[in-house]
């Protein structure tokens, strides 16, 4: 039976890594568990882990898109990394990325997503469906189209926002590029947090909320003492995913192209600019390595919080 259920990609190495314990409900066993996971792990290894390691290597070379260094890249060690940390553009990009993540992910998406889920928690019917549908629409529309919609919305002369606010000629993307991309990304990504919290709030036992209400707890007290402890795991996992996704999000480029004067050049855009527009692939890879390290720190921070005080 094990033969029949094994996909052809299964190799002996995969089975060697399979779990030691075989006492599980479905009687999966270690060989079959390995076989089940093998196709996914194989694709991940080839198209994810390998390129990631390759980025680490490229970061140590002077590889360029054109010129002599394109044909025969030289090993330059940590030079690229040292160049990056002494480059003020890199630091301003890092700071802008922190603002982008805190503003659009932690405050924007998580805050707004939770607020919508909380407002609609006891609702059924068309109002809930319409609100949720619109929020999800903003999330599933293609980014090429969505970014264009926002260019139209924020346009200086004919833009809808200026027409609504009565501010003709106000150039949002030039005068407030960071605010623009933060609000844009909040609009774009709130759906994920909203759905996650919607599901999480459904798990809070109504009897606990009921007893808190009978004891005279205010709305905020109910949130703090009953709801948050229950969905703490959800909040942290959501924060982790959203922070990482936002950190590496390239779509600000579609709105402001990093400008004006690099005022909205978050790290993902910075890498694109140095690697592909300036052709410094080695240096770009070194910056990617630093991004990887920062993400690692962020992830470890959340995981620590998740582990503590379970």
């Amino acid at each position: 039976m094990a033969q029949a259920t094994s996909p052809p990609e299964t190799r002996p190495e995969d089975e060697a890594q399979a779990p030691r314990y075989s006492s599980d409900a479905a009687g999966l066993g270690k060989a079959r568990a390995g076989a089940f996971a093998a196709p996914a792990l194989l694709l991940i290894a080839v198209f994810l882990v390998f390129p990631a390691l390759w980025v680490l290597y490229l970061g140590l070379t002077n590889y360029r898109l054109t010129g002599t260094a394109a044909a025969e890249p030289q090993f330059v060690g940590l030079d690229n990394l040292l160049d990056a940390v002494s480059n003020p553009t890199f630091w301003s990009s890092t700071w802008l990325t922190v603002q982008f993540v805190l503003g659009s992910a932690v405050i924007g998406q998580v805050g707004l997503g939770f607020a919508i889920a909380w407002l609609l928690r006891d609702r059924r019917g068309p109002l809930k469906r319409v609100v949720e549908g619109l929020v999800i629409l903003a999330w599933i529309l293609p980014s090429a189209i969505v970014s264009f919609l926002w260019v139209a919305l924020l346009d200086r002369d004919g833009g809808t926002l200026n027409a609504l606010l009565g501010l003709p000629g106000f150039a949002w993307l030039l005068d407030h590029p960071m605010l623009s991309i933060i609000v844009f990304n909040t609009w774009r990504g709130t759906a994920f947090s909203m759905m996650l919290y919607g599901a999480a709030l459904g798990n809070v036992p109504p009897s606990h909320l009921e007893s808190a209400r009978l004891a005279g707890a205010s709305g905020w007290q109910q949130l703090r003492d009953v709801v948050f402890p229950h969905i703490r795991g959800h909040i942290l996992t959501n924060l982790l995913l959203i922070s990482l996704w936002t950190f590496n999000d390239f779509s600000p480029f579609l709105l402001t192209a990093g400008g004006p004067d690099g005022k909205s050049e978050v790290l993902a855009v910075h890498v694109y600019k140095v690697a592909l527009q300036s052709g410094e692939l080695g240096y770009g890879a070194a910056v990617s390595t630093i991004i990887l390290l920062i993400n690692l720190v962020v992830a470890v921070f959340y995981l620590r919080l998740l582990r503590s005080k379970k």
Partner: protein
Amino acid sequence: MTRFVLGRIGFYTLIAVLLAFFTVPLLWLVTAPFTSDPTYEVRVPDFTWDNFAALLEHPYALPSLWNSVVLSAGTAVLVVIFAALAAYALSRVRLPGRDALLYALLLLSSIITGTAAMVPLFQLAVELNLIDSQFGLILILTGGLLPAAIFMLKDFMDSTPKSYEESARVFGASPLQIVRDVVVPLVRPGLATIAVWAVANVWGNFLMPYLLLSDVEKQPAAVITYTLYTEGGQANLSMLSTFGLLYSIPVVLMYLFVSKKYGFRFHGGIKR
């Protein structure tokens, strides 16, 4: 009583603000395609079909939508099957360092699918002869989406009761039969969510197809969108808005279908 009324007023005010925030940016997409000579301004359309007629004559616009269908459907199928199998195995069999592995892969995937890995992925595709191959692109996109998909699905799997599987096993079902007949029906909303998530991701993905497909006849709609707005240096707004609408409708229909049939939500949510 006053408190109740104020609460109601506050609630509906908030909802109205939310609706406005999420609707206003979309207005242009539903008005401009039906307006002759659209600008960035949202106007009451004069209901012309000329923009659609012009789009039909574009040689690559409509075929690119089909390419997007092929890429997203192919990727979603692979992601759902492989992620379901892997998430099930990881959920049911205790593997030392399993959680650390999952988090490590998740971390990698969020970085590597962005701009950082463009160069190595391009070089890899050249080596494996996957340039200009839609199947190759599907494999690459699948690899990028799998960690997050496994991560989300494992949570669904963890929260399903194991007693059904035990009884199925008593009746002699094989593990693959158990997955197909017991586990899949239980986590169907999760699979639907992952499928929609994968389709929406690939449907909107610009960078990877732009990088790996140079043949304009194989390029998906995301790439073709950008050829519409660089022609002559200026954005062709009538083409762009019309194409944008056609390009958006399939994902909207898919969402409506899935949310009606399976319910589009995280059951129990993602805890860890």
